C-alpha cells in the first residue's frame, strides 16, 4: 500500500469497530442510497436533454399539428402535451425499473444488493423514488416547453386533487414497475425484448395522445390496469376546460381505483420479489443469465 502511510494510520482504520444500523434506519438509508445514482448520476449525463426532452417534444408536435389541422377542440393540444410528459414516466418505469434488475445482474450489482443486509424492497423503492424525482424534472420541462410553444391554456379545478392524482398515479405506476422488476429478475436477454414489446402498445392503451373515452368502455376499463391510463384521464379532467365531458370515469372513482392499484401493485411486488429471489437463488440465476 501507499508507502507514505505509517503503520499507525493503517492500524487505526483496520481496528475501528464499525457501528451499523438495522431495521427501519437501514431501510431508509438504503432507499436514499439507491435513489442517489438516479437523481445525481443521471443529471451528469447531459444527453438526457436531447433524448428525454427534444425527442418527446417532436413526437408531441406531430399530434398537435394533426389536431390543429382537423380543428379538434383546443384542449386536445393540452392533452397531448400532458400525455407527452407522462411518456417519460412510462419509459422510465419500463427501462429503468422493470428491466433494471436484469441490468444490475449483468454488472454484478445485483449480487451485492442481495448479499447485503438491506431489504430488496428498499432497493426497488430507492430506484422508484430516484426515477420519479429525475423523471419529474424531465416531464416538467416537457410540459413547460410544450405549453409555451403551443400556447396551451389550463383551467385547473383543484390543485390538491391534481396533486393527489399525480402522486397516486406515480405510486401505482412505480409499484407496477417494482412488480415487473421482480419478474424480470429471472430473465436474461429476453428482458430487453419484452420491454421493447410493451413500449408502444401502452402509448396507445393509456391514451397518451387522446382521451380514452374514445375507446369502447370495456377496452378502456381493461386499459385502466395501467395506472397511467386513469392518472392521465383524471389529470386532464382536472386541468382543462373541457373537464369531465371528455373523461372516462369520474375523478373520484379514478382516484379510488388508483389507490387500489397502488396497494395491489406494492403488495404484489413485495410477494413476487421474495418468491423470485428464492427461486433465483435455488436455480442459480442471480448471477447467471444462461442457466
Amino acid at each position, binding site marked *: 500500500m501507499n508507502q507514505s502511510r505509517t503503520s499507525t494510520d493503517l492500524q487505526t482504520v483496520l481496528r*475501528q469497530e464499525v*457501528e451499523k444500523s*438495522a431495521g427501519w434506519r437501514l431501510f431508509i438509508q438504503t432507499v436514499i442510497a439507491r435513489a442517489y445514482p438516479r437523481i445525481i448520476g443521471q443529471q451528469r449525463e447531459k444527453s438526457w436533454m436531447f433524448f428525454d426532452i427534444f425527442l418527446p417534444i417532436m413526437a408531441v408536435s406531430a399530434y398537435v399539428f394533426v389536431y390543429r389541422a382537423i380543428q379538434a377542440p383546443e384542449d386536445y393540444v393540452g392533452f397531448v402535451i400532458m400525455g407527452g410528459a407522462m411518456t417519460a414516466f412510462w419509459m422510465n418505469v419500463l427501462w429503468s425499473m422493470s428491466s433494471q434488475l436484469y441490468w444490475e445482474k449483468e454488472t454484478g450489482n445485483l449480487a451485492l444488493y442481495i448479499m447485503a443486509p438491506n431489504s430488496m424492497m428498499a432497493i426497488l423503492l430507492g430506484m422508484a423514488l430516484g426515477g420519479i424525482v429525475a423523471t419529474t424534472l424531465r416531464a416538467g420541462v416537457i410540459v413547460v416547453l410544450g405549453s409555451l410553444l403551443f400556447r396551451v391554456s389550463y383551467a385547473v379545478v383543484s390543485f390538491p386533487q391534481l396533486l393527489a392524482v399525480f402522486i397516486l398515479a406515480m405510486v401505482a405506476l412505480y409499484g407496477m414497475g417494482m412488480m415487473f422488476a421482480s419478474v424480470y429478475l429471472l430473465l436474461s436477454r429476453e428482458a430487453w425484448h419484452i420491454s421493447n414489446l410493451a413500449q408502444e402498445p401502452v402509448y396507445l392503451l393509456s391514451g397518451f395522445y387522446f382521451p380514452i373515452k374514445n375507446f369502447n368502455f370495456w377496452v378502456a376499463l381493461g386499459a385502466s390496469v395501467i395506472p397511467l391510463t386513469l392518472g392521465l384521464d383524471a389529470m386532464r379532467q382536472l386541468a382543462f376546460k373541457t373537464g369531465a365531458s371528455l373523461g372516462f370515469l369520474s375523478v373520484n372513482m379514478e382516484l379510488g381505483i388508483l389507490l387500489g392499484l397502488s396497494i395491489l401493485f406494492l403488495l404484489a411486488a413485495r410477494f413476487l420479489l421474495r418468491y423470485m429471489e428464492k427461486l433465483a*437463488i435455488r436455480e442459480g440465476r442471480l448471477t*447467471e443469465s444462461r*442457466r
Partner: protein
Amino acid sequence: MNFAIVTDNLGRVYKIRGGKKTEPRELVALQDVQLQVKQGELFGLLGPNGAGKTTLIKILTTLLAPTMGQATVAGYDVVRQAEKVRPRINMVSGGESSGYGLLTVRENLWMFAQFYGIPSAVANWRIRELLKIVGMSDRINTKSSDLSTGLRQKMNIVRGFLTDPEVLFLDEPTLGLDVGASRDVRLFIREWVNQDPRRTLLLTTHYMVEADELCDRVAIINQGRVLACDTPESLKNRLQKEVLFRMQVSPLDSTQADTFESLPGVRKVTHRAFDGYAVLELILEQDDALGSVVNLMTTQNIHILNLQKREPTLEDVFVDLVGRSMEEVEKSGYSEGNQ
C-alpha cells in the same frame, strides 16, 4: 474452537437447459465439500478456472442454494438463516464492474456502505482512510467509469473492507492487477486479518504464489471436489520424499514429454513450450531416476539447456494430486460452465 465457515457434504448440481426438445443436462459444479475454516484464519481455495471455487463462494455468500449438504457462515445456516449471515459478510470478485460509472469513487463506496447501515460520517471517514491506504486518495472524486482496471479493482477491494465484515470472501482479488498492486493488496489482506482475531478471510485464487504466501491453510479444489486441505507447508511436505527437477531443454512436443513418465522412478512430468525451448518439471521418486531421463533425451536428440533441483511448491502438490498442471487443466477445457 470457533469456526467461521463449516461445510458438510456440500454440493451443487446445475441444470443446463438445452433446446425445446432436449432434456436439461446436469452439471456437477461442487461435490461432497467438507471444510472447516477457523475464526481468524486466512483460508485459501486453490484451483483452476472452473474448479468450483466461485460456486462455493456463491453458496457461502447466500447467492446460491446448494443442492446437497449444508453450510454455515459465522455460525448461521446460509440457506435458512441468510438474513443473519448477510450483515456479517462481504465479498469482492476480481474483475467485477459493480457500482455506477456516473458516480465518483466516493459516491459509489458511500452507496454500498449505506446498504450495510453505516452512518454517512463514519462511511466517508473510512472511505477517505481506506483510499489513502490503497494509494487512491487523489481519485476520490473521479468517476468510476474513468478508472483503469487496476484502480477499479482497488476500489472494489476498499468496498469489501469498508463494512468491516466478520467473514470476507475475496474471489480472485488480484485478477487484472499488476505485480506491484497485487503485492500491496496481499499485504493489506494479511494486515486486516492480523488486526482482529475475530476476522476471517476466504480467498480463492489460481495463483499458487498468492496462496502460498498469504494463506494459513489452503484447500486444493478441482472438478468440484476438495482434493487436499492443509497448511501450505504441510501440503508441500507431502512431496518431501520425492525429488523435483526443473529442466530447460531444446524444443519437444508433449508426446515426447509423456514418454518420460513411463520411465522407472519417474512419477510426473509436466511440459511447457516456449519460443525456442521447453521446460519440463519432473517429480522423481529418487535422484537415480534422473539418469534414465537424461539417457532417453540423448537418444531422442533433446539437448539439456539448464537443470535445477528445487524445493516443492503448491504447483507440484497440485500436479501430484491431479496428474496435470493447473495450466494444463485450464487448457484442456474442463469447465463447470460459466461460473
